């Protein structure tokens, strides 16, 4: 189900090499000098120090040539579970372990067919483990797991061993009996602890995203799911187009046509209520610290950004007032600034303003179609999607000085990035593979990209729950 994209970096670094060669032939030393500075640290400057180049039809930046991250080889033998219910749970546990350790972007989960011995004969405790065998298959870490039923409850035993030391690793993780429905949360907790052991920062598996999915009747419904693509829950069940969800503090905001106007609705405490139903556009709500930034067109006059009360929808403040389109407000992590999209220069570009609407300034100067901003939790960069010079859409980041980096390339159209709350990952939509729009997860540097929704298509507008 999880189809790993054959390391994009390998392919694209080849392409970049070809591009470099070509550009050195065509453009001489300048291109080379620029490219080597980008290889050296981060990016091609697009903003303030140099005058913006004559506007090309699309953004022209390549994925940078970076050192590939070193993945920790982990062995994850089958979860031991005996028979009946326990064996079913065991299959579930081993699937979550392997999938999410793989998705994490720090590990290489060794293929089980490379084990030249029978791991099922081996016990759980250090004394029972032949560490030499695991060392010989190349494992640095070994994850042992077993499942026992205690009446209706499940008792999980999940352990990490350091193969070179032949010793168990103490993790910030405590197992306790859970109902079968709580199994995946507990396995994710363990995975997060393993990530913390190797990286110093706990993982966030189990966190959720909201998204919209188109059905065969041309309608769209709002769903949520775990960041690994599992546990999908349908949130709207009406006969209308529902779109542009975001979720924060237990509320899901979305735009719905169920009353024949793109109104802003909120789902909280199990109830759907209309929050803003001004004629015309009510969309793209973003919540931060008691304030809700939205796009309103006020009777179809013009799309501008407003702050409204998240409880009663009353307008608190108008933030933009421009004859062109202003839309897609996204908060900085400290709620002091808002990134947004504006068409005031012609095509859509990324802008930033203070939370009171002051100091509106343009961030992106390359390309003619830049949209979908998502602010990183550290606050240092904003991910966005842009049309490149070949009319493909790809995911980029821009820092607050206007320096741009490219995260996806040569893989169909990639759009709608949303940062994880820990800043490690970006979920985005891609039509690569020719099966419509699906959701992908990548590490925030773009190096590792993996498919989340192997089934179906029409997945759009992902937004990480905060």
């Amino acid at each position, binding site marked *: 189900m999880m189809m790993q994209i054959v390391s994009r970096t390998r392919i694209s670094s080849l392409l970049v090499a070809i591009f470099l060669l070509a550009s050195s032939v065509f453009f001489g030393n300048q291109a080379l000098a620029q490219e080597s500075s980008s290889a050296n640290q981060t990016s091609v400057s697009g903003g303030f120090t140099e005058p913006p180049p004559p506007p090309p039809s699309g953004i022209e930046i390549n994925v940078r040539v970076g050192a590939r991250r070193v993945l920790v080889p982990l062995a994850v033998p089958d979860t031991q579970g005996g028979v009946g219910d326990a064996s079913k749970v065991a299959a579930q546990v081993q699937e979550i372990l392997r999938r999410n350790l793989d998705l994490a972007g720090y590990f290489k989960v060794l293929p089980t067919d490379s084990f030249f011995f029978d791991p099922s004969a081996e016990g759980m405790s250090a004394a029972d483990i032949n560490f030499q065998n695991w060392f010989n298959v190349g494992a640095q870490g070994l994850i042992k797991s077993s499942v026992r039923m205690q009446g209706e409850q499940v008792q999980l035993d999940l352990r990490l061993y350091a193969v070179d030391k032949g010793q168990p690793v103490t993790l910030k993780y405590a197992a306790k009996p859970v109902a079968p429905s709580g199994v995946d949360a507990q396995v994710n907790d363990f995975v997060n602890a393993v990530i913390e052991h190797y990286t110093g920062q706990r993982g966030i598996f189990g966190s959720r995203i909201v998204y919209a999915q188109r059905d065969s009747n*041309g309608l*769209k419904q709002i769903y949520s799911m775990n960041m690994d693509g599992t546990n999908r829950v349908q949130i709207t069940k009406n006969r209308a*187009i529902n*779109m*542009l969800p975001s979720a924060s503090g237990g509320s899901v905001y979305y*735009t719905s*046509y169920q009353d*024949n*106007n*793109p109104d802003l609705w909120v789902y909280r405490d199990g109830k759907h209520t209309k929050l803003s139903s001004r004629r*015309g*556009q009510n*969309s*793209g709500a973003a919540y931060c610290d008691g304030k809700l930034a939205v*796009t309103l*067109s006020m009777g*179809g*006059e*013009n*799309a501008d950004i407003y702050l409204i009360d998240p409880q009663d929808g009353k307008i608190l403040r108008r933030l933009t007032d421009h004859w062109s*389109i202003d*839309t*897609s407000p996204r908060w900085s992590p400290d709620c002091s600034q808002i990134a947004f*999209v504006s*068409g005031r220069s012609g*095509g*859509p570009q990324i802008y930033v303003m203070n939370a009171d609407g002051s100091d509106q300034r343009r961030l992106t100067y390359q390309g003619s*179609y830049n*949209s*979908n901003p998502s602010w990183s939790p550290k606050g240092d960069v904003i991910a966005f*999607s842009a*049309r490149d010079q070949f009319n493909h*859409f790809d995911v980029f980041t821009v820092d607050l000085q206007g320096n741009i980096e490219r995260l996806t390339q040569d893989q169909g159209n990639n*759009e*709608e990035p949303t940062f994880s709350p820990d800043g490690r990952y970006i979920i985005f939509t891609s039509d690569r593979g020719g099966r419509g729009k699906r959701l992908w997860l990548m590490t925030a540097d773009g190096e590792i990209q993996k498919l989340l929704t192997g089934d179906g298509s029409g997945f*759009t*507008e992902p937004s990480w729950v905060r």
Partner: protein
Amino acid sequence: MTTNAKFSRTTGSKIVLCLSGLLIAMFMAGCPKAPQKALDDAERALLDAQEKSDCAEEKYRAAEKLLEEARELVEKKDYEAAERKARAAEKLALEARQYADLTWEDCQRRKELARQAQNPQPTPVDENAGNDNELEEQLSLSTVYFAYDSSEVAPESRAALEDNIRWLRVNKDRAIILEGHTDERGTAEYNLSLGERRARSVRQYLIQLGIDGDRLSILSYGEEKPVAYGQSDADFSRNRRVEFIPQ
């Protein structure tokens, strides 16, 4: 019948010629700007003639062409020549309308014969159906299309808009929802705004041509309701549109 028609046409054209000459003289006294009144008059005359244009096809097409040339001249800021062309277009359109009125019965008979010739088993003609009903059936609402990333009403869209204006003038009591759409490229939310802009610019265009704004509401679906599901340029251009939905 034919002699009559020719006679009244020439008289009519003389009057029009005199009138338009007077107007040109009046206009030349002012400062140079686009001859909006002449263009509007010509447009109105064309709209007037359009419903019967198939009975005065040659004249009608010629008038259409003249107005188009006049608009091109306006683009080139050659306002004097533009005004002359616009007036000529108006005159021709008036003639077309008069000619069509005078020959209407003949023309309908010829068309019926042509229809019968094409269809060996003609459907019985409903004797009770008056011309008005038939006219109403012919009228329909056309979709207006847009260029990529654009919300401007393109000159190519004006023919479709003229059809719709006729409909709006005949169906005086009906209100319309102008439904704005975009192709699937780009962002869903930005496209929502773009679809709304398209609907709004069509609405403004119609209001300029005298349609009551209270009859025209707008609603954008952005990229959410495509009519063509492919990914070719042709599919995309079919989706960049404003639909007229009668209420």
